[in-house]
């Protein structure tokens, strides 16, 4: 049986227990950053100090917020579309070998084309607006979703499917009650990869041609040799990725409590 720490106090302790190491590492990184800049090891126009960077972040906070929202919107929209298309494609591929054989090589081909290389093409085709950014985000996030969903749908115990057959279950019921829920743990590991990639996709789209978004902010700052703003943009960008990743993890824990609890148990037994 799992050992559930009692009450909110126990849960808080568990969170602290889990998070103090990464937090300590992060603090250490900032300390090194601060040490490098404060000892003038590197000139400040190349690497601004943490203090300067944070100063820019508070000073220009409304400017940063505005562009952060743009990038977040592109990322989330691209991610959601990638999930919908990816899951549907995976389902069709698992149920039809013909479709799988036809689609899989094409998907692989689409995956190995560097998205950064084809991003300019989307600007030519779709203009400077929201669409090309979302398209690049979708393209880059789509692949891990399809792969993980296909793996998930195929991971179902064949005996379970035989059992469903002896129960006279319709294919739809078998999918809804057995195959789909069984595939979710795999899907979620793909979603975690996809959501971080979607940020990259959106920013790549902005690099190629945009007048808003964090990619635009970074390019602007780069052109003005405004390294504090460049660093601020980078920090915010990684924060978007981390926050979205955590949101996907929370969704996983809410949707698959059975999976999370089992994984937790495995972890305690191996430690």
């Amino acid at each position, binding site marked *: *049986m799992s050992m559930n720490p009692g009450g909110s106090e126990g849960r808080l302790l568990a969170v602290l227990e889990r998070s103090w190491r990464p937090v300590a590492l992060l603090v250490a990184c900032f300390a090194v950053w601060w040490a490098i800049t404060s000892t003038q090891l590197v000139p400040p126009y190349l690497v601004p100090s943490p203090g300067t960077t944070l100063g820019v972040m508070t000073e220009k906070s409304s400017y940063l917020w505005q562009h952060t929202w743009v990038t977040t919107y592109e990322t989330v929209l691209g991610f959601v579309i990638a999930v919908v298309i990816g899951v549907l494609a995976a389902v069709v591929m698992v149920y039809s070998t013909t479709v799988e054989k036809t689609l899989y090589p094409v998907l692989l081909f689409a995956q190995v084309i560097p998205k950064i290389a084809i991003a300019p093409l989307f600007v030519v085709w779709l203009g400077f607006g929201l669409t090309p950014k979302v398209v690049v985000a979708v393209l880059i996030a789509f692949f891990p979703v399809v792969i993980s969903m296909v793996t998930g749908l195929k991971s179902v115990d064949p005996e379970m499917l035989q059992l469903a*057959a002896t129960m006279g279950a319709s294919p739809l019921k078998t999918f809804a009650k057995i195959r789909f829920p069984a595939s979710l743990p795999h899907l979620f590991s793909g979603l975690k990869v996809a959501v971080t990639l979607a940020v990259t996709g959106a920013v790549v789209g902005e690099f190629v041609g945009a007048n808003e978004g964090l990619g635009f902010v970074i390019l602007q700052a780069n052109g003005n040799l405004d390294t504090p703003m460049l660093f601020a943009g980078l920090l915010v960008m990684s924060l978007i990725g981390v926050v979205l990743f955590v949101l996907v993890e929370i969704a996983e824990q809410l949707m698959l409590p059975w999976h999370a609890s089992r994984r937790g148990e495995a972890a305690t037994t191996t430690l």
Partner: protein
Amino acid sequence: MKGNLEAERTPGAATAVAAVELDAVAVRFRAKKKEVTALRDVSLSVAPGEFVSIVGPSGCGKSTLLKLVSGLLRPSAGSVRLFGEAVGGTRHDIGYVFQRAALLEWRSARRNILLQAEMRGMPAAEAGRRADELIEMTGLTGFEDALPHELSGGMQQRVALCRALLHRPPVLLMDEPFGALDALTREQMNVELHRIWRETGTTVLLVTHSIAESVYLANRVLVMTARPGTVAEIIDVDLPGSRDYAETMSQPSFAEATGRIRDLLGAATATD
């Protein structure tokens, strides 16, 4: 289960209404461009309510035999009948228990049992009553809400058994259901299965590797030869209807039956 197995059913009227009837059944399949015969000329007639154990060396096609009865697999030759009716496709009037419990990890024990009802579209109230009845019968009371990973192997197998019995199937197929359990749990499960069989009156086909288990539970034991699987002998078990475990083990007829099976299996593996 794919198209490389062709069914060839002999037309004709069913004479005696056996629960399960196999007539000169053969199963051949193609593996690496070579034709492999898994089963050859297997005939067996099981009366309604009878308990038949199937033992044989590994890979002799015991599980294949159960797949044939369920209709999950079609014979290459010969015929399979359930209650006089030729098995044409997957049968829904059977219960199936595998070696692994094959439970849905996200469902509680009770909801795993009720999967059978949901898939069949059984009325929920009736299914719920039946599930509670089975939970009590198999000693799962108090574990209804536990998730599979919180249950021991024996408990998981009890859940699988309840699920297989929910729709009151006239035929129960069990494929090494206790193979993964420890010896003590296995004995307990044998005693319980014996009692449940007597209470439900279901026809049971049990594939097992345990000679003691095969004899203790069954009316008859089908002993098979190594691949290609054929019937070595069908042994009648001369034991009373209601069996106490320890008492049964000390019966001369028990020793006689197990001894005979051991001889047959020794001969089967010697020719391997």
